[in-house]
C-alpha cells in the first residue's frame, strides 16, 4: 500500500475550481475501483469522482461546502498503485510523479500549471474575470454579473472590482480582522461567529502570501498596501483588529489612513520590542512534516496543541508551499524582530482609541513587551497563549463589543 495525496480533479475543460458537495466514503473506510469518493459541484452541475483504484480513505483535507481549486489537495488515501491523474502525490517522496502519464501527455492539465496568475477564467457562468478579481469580488460581495470589465474583451479585472467597491455603498464592515504570520482568515472563524451572532458585520482578509490570497508577499509593504487598498474601498469607518504581525500591519494602516478607522484592537502585537521567538517564525516558513507542525502549534498555546489532524494537515499543506520564506527573512535580523510598532501608535494617539490584548502564556512574543506600550493604550491581560482569540474567545469577543461597561 502506498499513501497518496489526491488533488482536486479537473472534471470538464472549463473547470478551475469546484465545491465539495459531499464525501461519499467516510474517513477510515475502504473503497473499490469505481466507487464514488465524493460529489462535487462545478459549472452548475453535480459530478461524481469515482475511485480509479481500490484503496482506503485515510483523511479528507477539505470539507463539504469548501470551494477547492483544481490541483489542490483534497484527501489522503492508501492504494495499491499510484493513481494515473496529474498532481497525485506519493506521500513518501512528496513529489509529483515525473513519469505520470498525464503530465507528459497533457501538460496543460498538470497541477504545476494551475498558476494563479492565469490571465482569465470563464468558468461557465458566462462572464470573464481574472481569478484575483473573482476573489476580491467574493470578499467584497460584489455581483460580477452586473459589471462590465475594462480588460481585454471586457474581461473583469481586479481594478474593476475595487472601483465598484469604492463607488457603491456596498462595502461596509463593523470589524476588519487581520491575521498573523503564517495564518489566514479562517483562524478567526470562532470570533467571527460570536461577533456575527451579535449582529455585527465582520470581514477577515487573507493577507498576501497567506491563505487563498494569490498575491505573494515579498516584503512587509505588500501586506500593508493590500490592507490600505481594502480600507480605501470601504464606505464607512471600521474597527480594525490585528493579531501579531497583523496587529503591526493594522497599526501601520491606521496611521496612514486614520479617517477610515474607528478603533484599533491589537492582539499579541508584534513590534513592541526586538525579542521574538525566531525559531517559531522560521519554522513556520519552512515547515515540512506533521510532527514539526505539531511542535510549532504547541508553542502557540493550549488550544492549538490539541488541534485535530485534519486541521494540522491543512495548515501544513498551506505552509509547506514555502510562500513565506522571503517575508520571514524581512521580519528577522538574526534572532531579533525588525519591527517597531511604537511610531505608528504615537501617530494615531489622538485619532482613535487603541487597545491591546496580551496572553500571559505567550511563547512567541514576551509578555513584558506590554511595559513598552504608551499610556494612551488600554491593556487587557488574558490567561492565554500567543493566540488569545483561540484560548479566551469569549473575552476577546466581549472586549471588542465593549461589553465590559466599566472600561
Amino acid at each position: 500500500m502506498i499513501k497518496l495525496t489526491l488533488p482536486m480533479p479537473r472534471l470538464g475543460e472549463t473547470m478551475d475550481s469546484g465545491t465539495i458537495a459531499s464525501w461519499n466514503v467516510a474517513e477510515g473506510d475502504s473503497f473499490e475501483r469505481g466507487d464514488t469518493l465524493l460529489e462535487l459541484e462545478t459549472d452548475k452541475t453535480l459530478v461524481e469522482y469515482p475511485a480509479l483504484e481500490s484503496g482506503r480513505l485515510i483523511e479528507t483535507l477539505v470539507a463539504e461546502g469548501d470551494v477547492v481549486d483544481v490541483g489542490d489537495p483534497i484527501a489522503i488515501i492508501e492504494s495499491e498503485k499510484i493513481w494515473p491523474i496529474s498532481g497525485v502525490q506519493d506521500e513518501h517522496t512528496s513529489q509529483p510523479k515525473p513519469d505520470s502519464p498525464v503530465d507528459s501527455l497533457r501538460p496543460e492539465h498538470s497541477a504545476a500549471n494551475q498558476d494563479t496568475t492565469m490571465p482569465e477564467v470563464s468558468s461557465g457562468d458566462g462572464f470573464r474575470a481574472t481569478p484575483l478579481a473573482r476573489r476580491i469580488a467574493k470578499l467584497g460581495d460584489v455581483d460580477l454579473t452586473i459589471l462590465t470589465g475594462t480588460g481585454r474583451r471586457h474581461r473583469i479585472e481586479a481594478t474593476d472590482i475595487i472601483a465598484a467597491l469604492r463607488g457603491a455603498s456596498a462595502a461596509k464592515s463593523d470589524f476588519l480582522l487581520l491575521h498573523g504570520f503564517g495564518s489566514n482568515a479562517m483562524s478567526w472563524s470562532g470570533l467571527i461567529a460570536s461577533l456575527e451572532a451579535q449582529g455585527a458585520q465582520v470581514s477577515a482578509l487573507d493577507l498576501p502570501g497567506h491563505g487563498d490570497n494569490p498575491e505573494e508577499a515579498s516584503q512587509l509593504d505588500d501586506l500593508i498596501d493590500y490592507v490600505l487598498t481594502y480600507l480605501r474601498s470601504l464606505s464607512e469607518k471600521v474597527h480594525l483588529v490585528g493579531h501579531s504581525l497583523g496587529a503591526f500591519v493594522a497599526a501601520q494602516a491606521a496611521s496612514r489612513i486614520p479617517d477610515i478607522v474607528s478603533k484599533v484592537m491589537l492582539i499579541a502585537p508584534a513590534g513592541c520590542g526586538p525579542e521574538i521567538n525566531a525559531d517559531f517564525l522560521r519554522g513556520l516558513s519552512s515547515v515540512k512534516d506533521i510532527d514539526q507542525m505539531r511542535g510549532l502549534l504547541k508553542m502557540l498555546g493550549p488550544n492549538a496543541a490539541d488541534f485535530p489532524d485534519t486541521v494540522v494537515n491543512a495548515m501544513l499543506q498551506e505552509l509547506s508551499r514555502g510562500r513565506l520564506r522571503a517575508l520571514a527573512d524581512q521580519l528577522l535580523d538574526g534572532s531579533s524582530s525588525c519591527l517597531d510598532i511604537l511610531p505608528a501608535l504615537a501617530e494615531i494617539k489622538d485619532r482613535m482609541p487603541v487597545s491591546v490584548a496580551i496572553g500571559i502564556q505567550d511563547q512567541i512574543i514576551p509578555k513584558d513587551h506590554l511595559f513598552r506600550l504608551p499610556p494612551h493604550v488600554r491593556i487587557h491581560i488574558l490567561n492565554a497563549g500567543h493566540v488569545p482569540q483561540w484560548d479566551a474567545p469569549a473575552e476577546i469577543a466581549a472586549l471588542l463589543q465593549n461589553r465590559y461597561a466599566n472600561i
Partner: protein
Amino acid sequence: MRLQTNSRLAAHYHLMRRIRTFEERVGELFVRGQSAGSMLHLSIGEEAAAVGVGSNMRDGDTFTTHHRGHGVFLARGADPRLMMAEIAGKETGYCSGKGGSMHIADMKLGHLGANAIVGGGIPSVVGAGLAARHRKSDNISVAFFGDGATGQGILYESMNMAALWHLPVLFVCINNQYGMGTRIDNATAAPDLHKRAVSFGLEGAQVDGSDVETVAEVAGDLISDARSGKPGFLVVDCYRFYGHARMDKSPYRDETEEAQGRLRDPVAKARQTLISRGEMNDESLDELDRQIAAEMDATIDFAADAREPQLDSIFDDVYDPSTPPPESVRDRLARVLGRARQA
C-alpha cells in the same frame, strides 16, 4: 480470449460485459483528464439493445448511431483500443483522433457515423438501404437513436420513405426514459413509441431491454423482414443508469427511481440466467470478467501511448480521395453555358 461454451447467451454476456467495462474505462479516462472533450455519453444499462440487435446483423450491413453509441459499435466488432484512442483524441483512433466519442465512424465495419445531432443519423440509413437495394445485395441498414429523437420530424420523414419504398431498414429506438433531464412522460402524451411506426406502415415492436435474449429474438425477426423489404421499428425499453453525460450526476432524478431502474440490468440478468441454466458458473464468469477487465485496461494504455494528430495531417481524411475534387464554379458555369449555347 475465447469462450469455453457454445451458448448464444454466453456470447451475448461476453459482449455486453465488454461494453460495460469499456464504458467504465471511458469514465475513468475522463477523470484522468485524458478524454478529448467532456461530453461522454455512456450506454451502461443499454447493452442489450446493442448486442441483441448487433448480433443479428451481418458483414456488409451498415448502421448509424446517436451520441450514445460506443456499445453499438463494439457490438459490431469494433476494436476497443482504436475506440479508446479516438475518444482520447489520438492519432491511432478510428478517425485519427479527429472525431472523438460523438463522431466515430468506420466504413469497413459499416459504421456510417455517430451523430451529435439528435436524430441526425436516421435519414442516412434510408439512403444506405436504398443503395443496398440498388446493388441488389441483401444487406440492411440500421439506425440507432434515443427516445429523444422521436421528437424530431426527420424520423417520421425517414420512416415514411422507408415504408413507401420497401427499404431494407430497421429503426432502433433505445428508450432509456430520458432525453437529458426530461423524462419521457414529460416529453410526450403517447409514450408507446412503436405504435407510431405502425401508422406509417412499418412493423413495430417493443421489447424489455433488460433481457438480451428477447431483444435478440425480436430483433432477429424484424431484421429478416427488413432484408426482404419490410422495414421495421424496434423500441428497446431500458433505463439510463447514470447521468446524461459524464458531467451529470442527474440530480433531477428521484433516488428510488434510480435504484429501481438500475435493477433492470441486462448484464446481471444474463449472468444469473447462465448460472441457473448451468451453462456457466461463478468461477468461469469471474475469470471471464477478469480477462475483459485486462483487455479494457489495455485500451487506456494504448490510448495514452499514442500521439495526438499532427498539424500537417489537418487536411487528411477530410475529403474522400477516391472522389474527384468538386468542379470549380467557373468551370461549371462555362460548361453549363456552353451547353446552353450549343442547344
